[in-house]
């Protein structure tokens, strides 16, 4: 469980977060329209990007599982989706706090970006009940993989649909219309790297813990201690 690579990953995550927070609060200038509230952007947006990429990654790992029938891919897919759900909760909470400060409302139902993200979260909220409703481990892994692929394909489609939507209040961060000043862009990139590292670290710990538990169970069964 305490491997050197995990330790290195953990240390780099902590360092990246320290750098990111320093840049956010001491380097990036205050935005003219939003003011200090815009600092949430360096937390909320990387969190959302990592969450959505995690869901897609879970789908890709599920494809690898169905192709190879290797249970390790299913475990990876499960852990990545599980972690994305936790990060997704963070996205919803930080987004709501920002919306309250910026728009005066915790939630705006007419805003496609918000509602589409909520739909994705609700969709993935059914992943674990579906998975654990099936007792046979092989069938469980297969069904979960099919779900992960379908839902994973839905994520970019949903994102594109929202982008093409005519009216939205939610600011666009990435795209042709965004022209972030260099200090803001650098801070944003460092925050994105830090968030990706945090995601990778937590996934690695969760995977290591799950593998250890599986090994322990198998060993107990072999030795007849269950």
């Amino acid at each position: 469980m305490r491997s050197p690579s995990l330790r290195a990953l953990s240390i780099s995550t902590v360092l990246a977060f320290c750098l990111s927070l320093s840049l956010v609060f001491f380097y990036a200038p205050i935005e003219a329209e939003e003011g200090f509230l815009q600092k949430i952007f360096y937390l909320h947006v990387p969190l959302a990007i990592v969450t959505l990429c995690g869901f897609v990654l879970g789908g890709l790992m599920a494809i690898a599982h169905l192709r190879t029938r290797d249970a390790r891919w299913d475990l990876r897919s499960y852990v990545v989706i599980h972690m994305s759900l936790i990060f997704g909760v963070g996205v919803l909470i930080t987004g709501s706090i920002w919306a309250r400060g910026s728009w005066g409302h915790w939630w705006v139902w007419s805003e496609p970006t918000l509602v589409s993200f909520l739909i994705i979260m609700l969709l993935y909220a059914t992943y674990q009940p579906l998975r654990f409703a099936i007792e046979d481990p092989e069938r469980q892994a297969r069904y979960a993989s099919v779900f992960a692929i379908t839902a994973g394909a839905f994520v970019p489609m949903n994102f594109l649909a929202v982008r093409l939507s005519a009216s939205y209040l939610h600011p666009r961060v990435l795209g042709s219309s965004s022209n972030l000043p260099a200090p803001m862009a650098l801070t944003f990139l460092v925050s994105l790297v830090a968030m990706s590292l945090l995601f990778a670290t937590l996934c690695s710990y969760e995977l290591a813990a799950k593998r250890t538990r599986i090994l322990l169970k198998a060993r107990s069964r072999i030795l007849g201690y269950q």
Partner: protein
Amino acid sequence: MTTLLATTLPEHSNDGYVAAAYIVFFAIVLIYVAIMAVRLGRVERKVRELSTQEREKEHTLKGAGERV
């Protein structure tokens, strides 16, 4: 440094929301890490139990072997 702080740190209003967002995020991470630590503690305890049981079993087998 003073100039830098003046252009990057707040003077008024919305700073509470920013603090709340960052606190919530770090609280989520902290809770998750705490849950992981509890689970790790449980696994370590199980490993210790398993090792003790294995040692006891070995002792018993050794004793039986010596008697034979």
